[in-house]
Structure formats: C-alpha cells, structure tokens
C-alpha cells in the first residue's frame, strides 16, 4: 500500500533510514535527497519525510508490529530508521500506558470512553524521548557525533540522556529561567547545558544562527537540521493509541500545542494507518490545547484566521511557551479539516486540571498535561467536544518536572505521634 509517492530519481540511497525515501517540502512539494536539511531551498517551507511503503500488506504489517518490542521500534517499518534500530544503543522509549480514565470521565460527564495517553512513563519522563530517538538515528546516519537542540526543558533532558546512552557529546540550549526540575534533569546526564538570556523563541533563533556558523556546522540539532526525522517520532503516539484501542481510531483526541509539530504528526500517523489498512477509515476530530498566556494558534482559530500572529509568552506552561509556532498554520488546517477546534485555558485552570487528573486517576501531569485536561473540560462545557464519543487526552510529561505549579499543595495536618492527636485533627 503506497502512502507517499514511491522513490524518484532525486531520492537518496546513500543512507539507510528504512522506508524514508526523500525529503519533501510541505509547502511546494520540492523534493531533495535525505540529508541534514530542514527548510526548502525554494520557498523556506518545512521539509518532511516522504516514504515508500509500497511493499507492505496490512495483515503482514500488523503481525510484524504486534510481534515487535514493547517500545516505539515495533513501528520501525513506518519510521525513518534502519531495520536493525532496536539493536543500537538508544533509550527505547514508547509503548506508554493508555489509561482508561473512568473516574475522570465521571467528573467530566464523558460517557463514550475517556483515555489518558500517559507519556510521563518514558525514560526521561516526557514524549520528547520519542522524537529524540528518531533524530539520534538520523545523526548516526549522517555522521554527527554531537547532539544539540533548543529546548523549553523536556527536550534538553531527552537529548542529554539519549546522547549519554549512545556515546555522543551533547550541548543544549534553554531559556535561562526554566523550572529548576527541568534544569537538573537536563544537566544530570553530563552534557553541556547553556542558559540563554531570553525566551524559547530567542533560543531557537540563536540555534538557527549557530547552525549556519562554522562553530555549529558539524552538530546534529535534533529540532533544527534533524527536524524532519525528529518530528516523525510523534507519529508513534498515534500508532500506539490506535493499537491500544484494538486497532481503532479514537473519535476525538486532545493534543497540546507548542510548535504544533506533535499535532500535525499525530494526524499524519492516523492518516498512514488508514492508508495502510491497519484501521478502519472513520471520521476523527483533532483538538489543540494551549495556555491562554501563549495562545497564538487558539487565537487564530477563534478569529477564523489561517495565519498565526506570534505572541510573547507569559504562562506557567513553559513547555508549551512557543510564541511563534512554526507548524501553527498546519494545526489550523487540521483542526478545521477534521471538525476539531483549538482552545486555551488560564494558568489557574491548568493547575486545577493537574490536580483533577491526579485526584481522579493517579496521574501527575506536568503543566502541558494540565493544559490538555483543562481544555478538554472547557470543550465539553462549551458543547464542542462530544462526551458520547471515545476521547483520548495526551499527557506529554511528568508532574515532577513542574512542581512549582502545584506548590500550594502540601500537608493536610501536622500532628503529634499519638491517636488522640490524630482524632483531634478530624482524621479518624
């Protein structure tokens, strides 16, 4: 079953990245051989992977996946990685729990089945391990020995850990004022960690300039010059959700938006499963979630615009604080095409939602998870999200990374070590 066009004369056979055949511009379709490139030389549009899946039959592919390892490499036939990827040193992320959230469903009035895809269970406790694992394989293929990135925190940790496992050097760049937990998680793996005086967009700009300078030319920036490969890792969220639902599409899925890359790749993953015959082709809706303090995509969606006006971020949801989201226009297209929506919630609603998810399901989400749960609640209250449909909400990171957000949570009581004191405190 061919999902993308088959290999052409411009395609590269020089590197072995499995079914990846070429890089193709998402804007103008201009095609170039596989390489460490991210922007189209014709129009600056983002390059993405074009695959050749023409040799796959649905039944054989499903069996091959189900017999694969309990991590993202079960989907290696659908990713830009060599066939023997599982034998190489990497963090083997993925196959995280799809939690049937019946208690949360009762609170929110969802009757059609509510699930939380809990990606806090990855090796560095966020979904970023999925994307970094792809970039690492591309870095190996292109001969890089230093991994780098611009990061809002989670990615820095994922890159540091993956580099340590694979024996790469790492040097990563973050805004100087990130949450302490994320700084420690990024630094502990022993690579270089550099704070930039500015916000994420400033860090991103710096890295884009560094990559064009001799100082950074030989580096693999996972989310810059390796971005086409890196971004494909988010497809595995879509694959896993469908497989865990019994090879079935969810009716509705709520996804956080930072750059918008994850949401676009989840849509790509769902489309691939449909085209390959692994799931029944039924309508699904994709909803995007932002924090009100950084809501350029939500603002554009509500205003009916198809361009995204950048904002200066001001929110506790720092992992989503990208004011100039490169994939924003594509998110708008997908939300509108599928009948979904893009919504935002205040920081106060984010904190409430973190506590709600923890209290009802025992899942402690980072602020980005608070954004998706908070937006889910708001969409239900506004009648936009149908409570009678199967709904999946993503939690993309661990609450231990953003403890400050729930800092007011603490002891119920302090008592002396005797039963009288216990009773006096009203705990009996």
């Amino acid at each position, binding site marked *: 079953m061919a999902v993308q066009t088959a290999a052409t004369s411009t395609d590269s056979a020089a590197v072995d990245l499995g079914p990846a055949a070429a890089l193709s511009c998402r*804007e103008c379709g201009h095609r170039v051989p596989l390489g460490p*490139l*991210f*922007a*189209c*030389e*014709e*129009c*600056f*549009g*983002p390059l993405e992977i074009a695959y050749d899946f023409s040799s796959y039959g649905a039944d054989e592919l499903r069996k091959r996946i189900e017999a694969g390892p309990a991590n993202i490499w079960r989907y290696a036939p659908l990713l830009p990685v060599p066939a023997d990827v599982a034998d190489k040193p990497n963090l083997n992320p993925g196959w995280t729990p799809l939690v049937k959230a019946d208690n949360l469903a009762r609170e929110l009035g969802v009757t059609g089945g509510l699930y939380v895809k809990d990606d806090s269970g990855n090796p560095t406790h966020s979904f*970023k391990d999925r994307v970094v694992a792809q970039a690492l394989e591309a870095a190996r293929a292109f001969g890089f020995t230093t991994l780098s990135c*611009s*990061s*809002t925190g*989670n*990615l820095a940790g994922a890159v540091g850990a993956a580099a340590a496992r694979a024996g790469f050097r790492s040097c990563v760049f973050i805004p100087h004022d990130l949450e302490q937990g994320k700084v420690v998680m990024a630094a502990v793996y022993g690579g270089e960690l550099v704070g930039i005086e500015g916000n*994420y*967009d*400033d*860090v*991103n*700009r710096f*890295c*884009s*300039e560094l*990559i*064009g*300078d001799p100082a950074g030319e030989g580096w693999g920036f996972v*989310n*810059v010059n390796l*971005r086409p490969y890196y*971004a494909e890792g988010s497809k595995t969220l879509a694959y896993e959700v469908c497989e865990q639902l019994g090879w079935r599409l969810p009716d509705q899925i709520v996804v956080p938006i*930072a*750059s*918008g*890359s*994850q949401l676009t790749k989840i849509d790509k993953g769902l489309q691939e499963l449909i085209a390959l015959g692994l799931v029944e082709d039924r309508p699904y809706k994709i909803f995007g979630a932002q924090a009100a303090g950084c809501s350029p995509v939500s603002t554009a969606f509500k205003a009916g615009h198809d*361009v995204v*006006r*950048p904002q*200066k971020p001001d929110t506790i949801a720092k*992992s989503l604080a*990208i004011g*100039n*989201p*490169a*994939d924003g*226009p594509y998110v708008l297209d997908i939300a509108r095409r599928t009948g979904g929506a893009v919504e935002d919630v205040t920081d106060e609603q984010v904190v409430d939602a973190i506590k709600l998810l923890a209290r009802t399901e025992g899942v402690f989400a980072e602020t980005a998870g608070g954004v998706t749960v908070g937006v889910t609640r708001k969409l239900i209250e506004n009648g936009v999200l149908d409570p009678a449909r199967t709904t999946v909400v993503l939690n993309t990171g661990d609450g231990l990374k953003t403890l400050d957000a729930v800092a007011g949570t603490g002891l119920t009581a302090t008592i002396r070590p005797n039963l009288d004191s216990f009773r006096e405190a009203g705990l009996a």
Partner: protein
Amino acid sequence: MSVTVRIPTILRTYTKGRAEVAAEGGTLAEVIADLEKNHTGISARVLDDQGKLRRFVNVYVNDDDVRFEQGLQTPTPEGAGVSIIPAVAGG
C-alpha cells in the same frame, strides 16, 4: 543606511557562500530590494508572489522580530544587523 545582513545557509548560493553581506536601505523592504540588486534571485526566496514575507521566514532587525514591529516597513538604522532565518519548530 548601511546594514549587515546575515544570510542563512540555504540562501548562500546567491551570495557566493558568504554568511554576511552588506546592504543599503532605510527599511527592511529597501534592504531586500538592495540585496536583490547585488544577489539576483534572493528576493523571490524571501518574499512571496504578493511581495510579502514568506510565512516560514523570520527576519530580525537587531534583536527584534519584524513581525512584532512594522514588517517590511520596519526601519533599519545605520549599522543595524538584519538576520534572515528559516522558521523552525521546537519544544
């Protein structure tokens, strides 16, 4: 006004491989027009058919994203640094 323009790797075929070139102009639009005079073809890579900045191009005058300023009409003072950068996703 004389400014320095930082050229991204994918546009260096127009500048004979140079990462920085000099240009003249009191606004970003004038700077791009001047670039085109000396590096033919570069303007069509940065601007779309309607003459607007392509949506995946970010341009900074000194440290300011021109989308937060006056777009192509953003003033470019004497000695300013102009950076042309492809938009990238992150996280």
